[in-house]
């Protein structure tokens, strides 16, 4: 547990970066500090491992005042991940990861074994162990950065915009992997970002800070999206917060319709026979949705016995997992050229389709449930949003 107790950071020139921060980041959970630039989020993070010393107030780690600890020792017990990974350019990937274990006096062999283990944990092949950071892509460097922070198995991790410098596709994948990893390792994580979407995706609790280092709101994602405390938070959370909040409502009442799909390579004849409203869904041999075929438009110059190829497919639609949030399902339904969104199981195999109307009905049902549970949330801090299953979409394939 990380606790900020009336922590203030003021500089000699009078600027106040953090002003009387009171915040508790619970053990084993991800707490996100989010806010515009100048809100003191990074300063707050750096006061935990004392890269910055507070002007007043105390930062406690599991009840111990960090001010009384030896800085080097304190820091070796805290994982730290930064935006551009900050890898040591002169050390191989394995040696980078082994840095803290070596500082702690592990033998070379044990540190190396640990490094290889972590390489696997963050999804990099063992053959990367001997490479230098300059030989890796930004996303790979960031994975090594995470592995390095985890090397000595610290209970606490500080992450300062770790995914901000990579492209959106890689970022989404890293976020997804982060969630899976955190489910596995359950670290106490303090995570800084300026991106509210990232905060909502990754955080168990989110602290919104405003310029001048004031805590504006500290809440769970769903609460933040549905009940911002003031105009600043509402503004910061953004215009599409209603849409994003759908991530936190489980599509309990949603019925998935059966969809007669055809395999890639089937004849146009067969596609025409399977089509409804002029559209047929095409799947791979593994029953994964690939795209839609407009059976009316595909005809010119082609015989009915021609096989359905990739060239016939319209790829605009996303797919949604049945276990994903309502946002994922709504997006699949809205983006599909046929008006029917492809729904899959967790393995990616087709289970059926939903229309936008189906999803909206499910949203309405979820809201009613939410309202009923809402009364409980007012009084009981343990209650979360109705069906607060935080199983969210990260990878949305196209179909």
């Amino acid at each position: 547990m990380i606790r900020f107790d009336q922590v203030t950071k003021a500089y000699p020139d009078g600027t106040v970066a953090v002003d009387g921060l009171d915040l508790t980041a619970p053990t084993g959970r991800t707490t996100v500090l989010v806010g515009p630039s100048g809100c003191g989020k990074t300063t707050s993070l750096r006061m935990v491992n004392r890269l910055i010393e507070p002007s007043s107030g105390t930062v406690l780690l599991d009840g111990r005042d960090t001010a009384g600890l030896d800085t080097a020792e304190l820091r070796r017990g805290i994982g730290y991940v930064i935006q551009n990974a900050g890898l040591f350019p002169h050390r191989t990937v394995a040696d980078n990861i082994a840095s803290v274990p070596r500082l702690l006096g592990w033998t070379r062999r044990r540190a190396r074994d640990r490094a290889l283990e972590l390489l696997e944990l963050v999804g990099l092949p063992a053959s990367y162990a001997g490479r230098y950071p300059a030989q890796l892509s930004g996303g790979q460097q960031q994975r090594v950065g995470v592995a390095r922070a985890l090397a000595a198995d610290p209970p606490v991790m500080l992450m300062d915009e770790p995914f901000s410098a990579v492209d959106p596709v890689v970022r989404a994948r890293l976020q997804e992997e982060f969630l899976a990893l955190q489910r596995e390792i359950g670290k106490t994580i303090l995570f800084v970002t300026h991106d509210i979407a990232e905060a909502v995706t990754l955080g168990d609790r989110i602290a919104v800070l405003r310029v001048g280092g004031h805590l504006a709101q500290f809440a769970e994602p769903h609460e933040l999206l549905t009940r911002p405390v003031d105009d600043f938070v509402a503004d910061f959370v953004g215009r599409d917060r209603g849409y994003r909040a759908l991530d936190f409502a489980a599509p309990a009442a949603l019925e998935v319709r059966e969809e007669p799909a055809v395999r890639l390579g089937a004849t146009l004849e067969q596609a025409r026979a399977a089509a409804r409203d002029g559209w047929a869904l095409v799947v791979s041999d593994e029953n994964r949705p690939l795209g839609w075929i407009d059976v009316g438009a595909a005809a010119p110059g082609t015989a009915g016995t021609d096989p359905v190829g990739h060239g016939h497919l319209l790829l605009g639609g996303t797919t949604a997992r049945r276990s994903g949030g309502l946002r994922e399902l709504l997006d699949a339904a809205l983006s599909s050229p046929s008006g029917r969104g492809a729904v899959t199981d967790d393995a990616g195999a087709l289970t059926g389709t939903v229309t936008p109307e189906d999803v909206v009905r499910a949203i309405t049902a979820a809201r009613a449930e939410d309202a009923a549970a809402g009364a409980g949330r007012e009084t009981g801090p343990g209650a979360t949003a109705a069906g607060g299953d935080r199983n969210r979409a990260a990878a949305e394939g196209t179909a």
Partner: protein
Amino acid sequence: MIALRWLSDNAGVMAEYFLAHVWLSVLPLLLGLVLALPLGWAAHHFGFLYRPLVAGSALLYTLPSLALFVLLPQVLGTRMLDPVNIVCALTVYTVALLVRVVADGLAAVPEDTVRAADAMGYTAVQRWAAVELPVAVPVIAAGLRVASVSNVSLVSLGALLGIPQLGSLFTLGFQLGYLLPIAAGIVLCLLLAWLLDGLILAAARLLTPWKRAETPA
């Protein structure tokens, strides 16, 4: 014929001169590096020291070398012919060249890298030895190459004080009115400069396998 004869007669002396030249130029290079590392670190680490240290060392380099050779015995209390004078003078020049190089080399270490080292719990000394210095090697090596060439050429001035090394061949040729010793001295100086440069390059390559990795495969 006469030339070959002269060369073979004097091969032993020239070898002696060459070896003397080697240690008179290499020892100050090493001493200068050892002194410049902490000075350069201080200039980099304490911002207010950068200007005085770098400007001060640059000033040292403008001291006329001959004047320094003549003055040092009085400052150090050594004899005029003592090679220590040359070693001290060239150490001063090496420091003068390298303080800035070391400071700038350390400054070129990416900020993220340094912060990551701090955050991982490296102490200041560990960070310097294990992270900053190795990353600064290419810059420091480049400075050392300049200093080594400069030293090789400055050592020969010691001939004017009568300290035996390759420069002695120049004074000899001058006295005899004979070009051959001068030519031989120049060739041997060039050879030495080239050897030292190669050695520094090789050492730098050995210390920076990661640099070669930076060029995409």
